[in-house]
């Protein structure tokens, strides 16, 4: 295929990655390449410094202390550490009706395994929730766990208001920020929530394999039990897990190749201007929304305004799989169809009957010309 590839599946993972990453990867292989925190020879120290630098940059991004940034395999893993590590038998957890399976399935598994009670805040397709209902549901609960930006359509929860409710009701607030970190400003976010989970490979433009659980400065880590136990390079004479951060939650060899890439992509993002990236994505999303509205027979399942960089649509009377195939095969455009691991969202959107939607998710390197090309392709497909 000689058409230029146009990538609109950034909600799944960013592509391309930050331009520095090839150099970053080979630099690490050549000049550090060993375990961090497992020795005091020069290579191990260099690796340890990279690990610290990544923690520091992330702690500045979400406003916490470096040691409160915990590295995991991916955002889902981080969410599991938070939910499985915090919730106990009989606890009540409040969530929304539009959750990704990362939260949904984990909560359902805990319901079966240890008998937690799950309460769902009614949510419309734009992420609007009844705050009165949220307040009622939160009474007597121990945790509020929800997604910040929806991965299907970019709907964004009212974070400030939910944060206030969680504080008033003394709940632990876990935020799944997989689709918001690198997309929307998250300054001071760990002053609004207690725990935040996200990955390095989406909005932060790094490679797959690194997830982050961030703890607020006030969160008492004694309330959270690790999911895995083992060697940490510290307290080796002890046969029990260290209780201090971050070692309590980081057993075994961590993904230093991925963490090096994440550190370098963060430095690249800051030098490029993180707000430039936020604005760029918001502008392109707005432009896409406006253009898509002009095409016949399109249902759009997203809103205009400040929501995330994801948009869903269908073409009436066309199968979503045919549309994805044509976009890919004829135009070399990458989109993602289906339920996007979030059947709960599609229930709210009433799009289960189509088998889901066609999702366009915008990344840092998309251009207005690419949106125009996508619109041109959709128009041609609609007219066929």
């Amino acid at each position, binding site marked *: 295929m000689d058409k230029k590839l146009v990538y609109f599946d950034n909600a799944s993972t960013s592509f391309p990655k930050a331009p520095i990453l090839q150099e970053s990867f080979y630099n690490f292989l050549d000049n550090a390449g060993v375990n*961090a*925190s*497992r*020795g*005091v020879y020069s290579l191990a*120290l260099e690796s*340890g*410094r990279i*690990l*610290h*630098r990544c*923690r*520091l940059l992330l702690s500045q991004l979400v406003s916490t*202390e*470096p*040691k409160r940034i915990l590295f995991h395999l991916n955002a889902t893993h981080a969410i599991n550490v938070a939910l499985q590590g915090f919730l106990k038998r009989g606890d009540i957890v409040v969530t929304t009706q539009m959750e990704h399976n990362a939260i949904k399935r984990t909560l359902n598994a805990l319901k079966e395994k240890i008998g937690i009670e799950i309460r769902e805040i009614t949510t419309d397709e734009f992420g609007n929730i009844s705050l009165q209902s949220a307040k009622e549901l939160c009474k007597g609960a121990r945790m509020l766990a929800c997604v910040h930006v929806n991965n299907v359509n970019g709907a964004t929860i009212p974070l400030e208001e939910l944060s206030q409710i969680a504080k008033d009701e003394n709940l632990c607030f876990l935020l799944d920020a997989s689709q918001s970190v690198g997309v929307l400003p998250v300054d001071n976010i760990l002053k609004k929530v207690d725990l935040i989970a996200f990955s390095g490979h989406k909005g932060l433009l790094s490679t797959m394999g690194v997830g982050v659980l961030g703890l607020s400065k006030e969160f008492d880590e004694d309330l959270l039990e690790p999911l895995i136990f083992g060697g940490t*390079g*510290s*307290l*080796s004479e002890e046969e029990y897990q*260290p209780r*201090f*951060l*971050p*070692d309590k939650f980081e057993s075994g060899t961590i993904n230093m190749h991925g963490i090096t890439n994440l550190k370098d992509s963060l430095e690249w993002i800051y030098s490029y201007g993180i707000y430039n990236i936020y604005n760029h994505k918001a502008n392109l999303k707005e432009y896409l929304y406006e253009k898509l509205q002009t095409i016949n027979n399109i249902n759009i399942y997203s809103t205009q305004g400040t929501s995330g960089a994801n948009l869903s649509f269908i073409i009436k009377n066309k199968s979503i799989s045919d549309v994805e195939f044509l976009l890919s095969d004829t135009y070399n455009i990458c989109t993602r169809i289906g339920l996007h691991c979030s059947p709960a969202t599609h229930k709210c959107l009433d799009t289960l009957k189509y088998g889901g939607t066609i999702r366009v998710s915008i990344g840092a390197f998309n251009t207005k010309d690419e949106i125009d090309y996508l619109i041109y392709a959709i128009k041609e497909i609609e007219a066929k």
Partner: protein
Amino acid sequence: MISGYILVYSSADAFYAEEIFKTHNINIKLMPTPRELSSDCGVCIYFEIESIDKIHLVLNDKNLEYEIKLK
């Protein structure tokens, strides 16, 4: 010259401290924690006595928990 070791809980704290000292032009060296010293971390920080006041100042400012052992 009198010198000593700063013991911290984790290597994450040790690298954090190293960066803080670098910012404040305090000369230190990361070292394996001497086995005779009780420590929660495989890495400790070696320093010379002339820096001790500045060390207390910057570590307390960052709320880093530490212990000093003089040689």
